[in-house]
C-alpha cells in the first residue's frame, strides 16, 4: 500500500513523454523535429520494403527521401512507419505521419470524406489478375466460377465484385487482412486467381516459390492512380509535396540525371536554369531553398531513374513503363512547368 500512491505520482510519466503533434504548419514541424515521418507499406517489393537489416527501398521510399532532401537537406533523415491498409488513413489524420507514401489509390470518397488531399500521381496503375500458367487461361473473361484471393480494406474487393457482376460471372471470394496472407493462400492453391493492382501483382509474384509459373492476365479492370497523400488544411505542405513529385518528372523531361546534375548546373538553357535554381527564386516561393531540385536529383535521381531502379528494368520486378512514360514518349506522366 505504501508504494501504491507513489504509482499515482509517477503514472503521468507516460503522459509526460508523449509528444503532441501539430496538424498545421507541417513544414515548420518537420524542420524543428529534424526528421520526416513517412507512412509506407509493410513490405511491398519495389514500392516500400525493408531488407533484412531494416533498410528501406522502393519507389515510395525514394519519394520520401526526396522530400526529406528538400526540407531537411538530408535524404536519410526519414522515419518510415509501416502501416496496414486499415490504419494508413488514421495515422495520417492523427498526425502520426507527415505524408502517406504507400501506393494509395486516389478516389473521390478518399479525397473528400477523410480530410485528406491527394497531391499528384506517382504511378498510374490498374487492377489486374494473376493466375497459374498451368491453368491455361488467357483472359479474365474465362474466370467464371473461379476462387479469387483478395485483400480486404482495399478498393480491389469492390472492383472485383463490380467486374464479375457486370460480366455475369460467378466467383468465390477468399479475403484476407494482409497481402502476405493473401499471397500465401494463393500459392497454397486455396484460390485460382490473385487480384490486386498490377504493380502489386508483379511485386508479390517475387514472393512466390517459382515466380515464372504465374502469369498476369492482360485485362486492367480499374483505374488506380497511386500517389502521396497529405492532410487537409496545410496548403504550403501540399504544394511542397506536389511539386517535389513534379520536379522529379520535369527533371527526367529535361534529361537531368543523378550523374550529370553537376554539369547541368552550368547549363545556359533557360528551362534547366529555372529548374535547378540558378535563375529565379522558385524554391523560395515554395518555402524551400533555391537548389531544391538539385537536392532531389542528387538524392534519388529523376523520375525515370527511380522507376528503373525500383520497379523497372533495373529491378527484379521488371515492370514496363507503360502508362508511366512521359507524355512526349507515349505515356501520361505530365508535370506542369516549373516557372
Amino acid at each position: 500500500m505504501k508504494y501504491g500512491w507513489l504509482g499515482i505520482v509517477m503514472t503521468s510519466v507516460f503522459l509526460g513523454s508523449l509528444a503532441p503533434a501539430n496538424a498545421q504548419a507541417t513544414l515548420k514541424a518537420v524542420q524543428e523535429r529534424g526528421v520526416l515521418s513517412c507512412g509506407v507499406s509493410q513490405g511491398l517489393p519495389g514500392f516500400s520494403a525493408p531488407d533484412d537489416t531494416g533498410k528501406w527501398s522502393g519507389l515510395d521510399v525514394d519519394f520520401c527521401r526526396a522530400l526529406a532532401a528538400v526540407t531537411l537537406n538530408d535524404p536519410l533523415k526519414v522515419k518510415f512507419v509501416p502501416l496496414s491498409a486499415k490504419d494508413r488513413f488514421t495515422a495520417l489524420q492523427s498526425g502520426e505521419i507527415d505524408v502517406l507514401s504507400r501506393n494509395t489509390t486516389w478516389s473521390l470518397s478518399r479525397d473528400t470524406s477523410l480530410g485528406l488531399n491527394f497531391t499528384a500521381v506517382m504511378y498510374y496503375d490498374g487492377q489486374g489478375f494473376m493466375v497459374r500458367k498451368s491453368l491455361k487461361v488467357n483472359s479474365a473473361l474465362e474466370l467464371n466460377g473461379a476462387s479469387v484471393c483478395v485483400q480486404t480494406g482495399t478498393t480491389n474487393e469492390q472492383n472485383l465484385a463490380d467486374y464479375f457482376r457486370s460480366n455475369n460471372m460467378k466467383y468465390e471470394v477468399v479475403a484476407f487482412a494482409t497481402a502476405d496472407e493473401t499471397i500465401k493462400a494463393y500459392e497454397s492453391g486455396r484460390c485460382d486467381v490473385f487480384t490486386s493492382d498490377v504493380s502489386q501483382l508483379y511485386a508479390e509474384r517475387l514472393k512466390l516459390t517459382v515466380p515464372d509459373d504465374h502469369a498476369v492476365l492482360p485485362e486492367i479492370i480499374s483505374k488506380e492512380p497511386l500517389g502521396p497523400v497529405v492532410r487537409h488544411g496545410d496548403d504550403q505542405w501540399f504544394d511542397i509535396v506536389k511539386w517535389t513529385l513534379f520536379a522529379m518528372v520535369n527533371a527526367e523531361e529535361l534529361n537531368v540525371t543523378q550523374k550529370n546534375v553537376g554539369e547541368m548546373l552550368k547549363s545556359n538553357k533557360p528551362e534547366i536554369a529555372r529548374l535547378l535554381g540558378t535563375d529565379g527564386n522558385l524554391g523560395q516561393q515554395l518555402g524551400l531553398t533555391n537548389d531544391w531540385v538539385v537536392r532531389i536529383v542528387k538524392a534519388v535521381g529523376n523520375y525515370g531513374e527511380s522507376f528503373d531502379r525500383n520497379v523497372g528494368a533495373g529491378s527484379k520486378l521488371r515492370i514496363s513503363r507503360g502508362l508511366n512514360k512521359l507524355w512526349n514518349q507515349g505515356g501520361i506522366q505530365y508535370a506542369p512547368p516549373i516557372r
Partner: protein
Amino acid sequence: MATAPRRPPFRPLTRLWRVLSGDTGWKGIAGQLVFAGLLAWLVSDIVINARANLQAQHIASGFGFLAGTAGFSVNQALIRYSEADTYLRVFEVGLLNTLLVSIIGIVFATLIGFAVALGRLSPNWLLARLSGGYVEIIRNLPLLFQLLFWYLAVLAALPNPRQSLSVFGVAFLNNRGFVVPHMEPQQGAGVFVVAILAAIAASLVMMAYARRRLYRHGERLRVWPFALALLIGLPLLGIVLFGVPVSFDVPVLRGFNFTGGTRVTPELVALTIALSTYTAAFIAEIVRGGLLAVPKGQMEAGASLGLSRPAILRLVIIPQAMRLILPPLTNQYLNLTKNSSLAVAIGYPDLFSVFAGTTLSQTGQAVEIIAMTMAVYLAISLVTSALMNAYGWHLDRSQRA
C-alpha cells in the same frame, strides 16, 4: 407473560440513507458524489473530443451507413446475399456465421471434452496418459497459433479441385472445401417431416408410459421394437404415398470449381477443429475436477450394486457431478463464442471479420460499428449464461426432489 416483540419502526429515510451511503455516513455520500462527478466529467470530455475529432476528419455519424450498398461479396452466407445488399444484410450474414461456428464448436467441444475427461480417469494406463498429454499440449499453446496451424495444415494436405478425393462419387473433398450433394425439398417433403416428428413424439410417449409402468407396477415393457418400427415405417409410408421427399443436386466439376451441391469451406472446418479441440482441453479438466469431487463411496456403492463401470458413470456419478461442472462449463462456452472472432485471421466471414473488418474500412465509422459488435457479443454472452443458469436451476430442482 412476555408480550410478543414489536416490529422495528419503519423509518424509510434512515434506511434509504444507510443504503445509499453503504453505512459509511456522510463521507460515503460525499465520496460517491465526487466519484459520480468525475465520471460524468470524463464521459462528457470523451464525448466532446470524439465529436470534434469525427467532425474534423469528415467522418459521418449515426447509423445511416447501414442502408448503404455493401459492394463486396462474402464466401459463406447462410441467407441469400449478393454484393448489391446493404451493410445491414452484411451484419446479419456475419452474425449467422458466428452463431453457426459457435454452436457447432460447442457441441463438438463438449463431446470431445467429456470423452477426454473419461479417458483421463480410465484405469487403462496408456489411455490415461495419452489423454493427459493431449490436455497439457493443447492447453499450453495459444489458440491463434493452433488455428493457423490447422488452417495451413488442412490446406496443405488437401488436393486442388481437379484432383479431389471423391466420396462415393457424390461428395468431393479438396482444398476449396467439402462439397456434398444439396437436398432440394420436393412435394413429399412436408409429409416426410411431419411423419418423422410424429414417430418421435409417439416413441417418447411410449417410453414415458413404459417408465411409469416400471415405477408403479414393476413391469418391464419392451418398447424399442415398436419405436424403431414407427421411426422407420411412418416415414417410409410417407414416401410410398407421397413420393420421394428430396432430390439431390450432385456437384459437378466445371472449370475451376464444383457447381451445384453445398460446400463446407476449409475456413469453417479449420476454425471448428481449432476451437473444439482447444476448448475441449479446458472442458476435460473441468469435467475431471467435477467427477473427482463426487465422493468415492458413490462409485463403490454402485459397484456393490453390481453395475458396470459405464453404467455407474452414467447413472450415479455424472448426474451428481453436473451441478459442479455447470458454472465453469458455461464460462468455457462463452470463451468459445468469443474466441470465434479469431476467424478474421483465416478469412472466415464471421461477424467481426465482415462487419468490424471490411465494413469498418469501407465506411470509416469506427464508433458505431465497434459499439454494435461489442453489443452483439455481450448479448450472446448474456443469453448463453441465462440458458445455462436455467439448466442449472432445473438440475437443482430435480436433484432436490
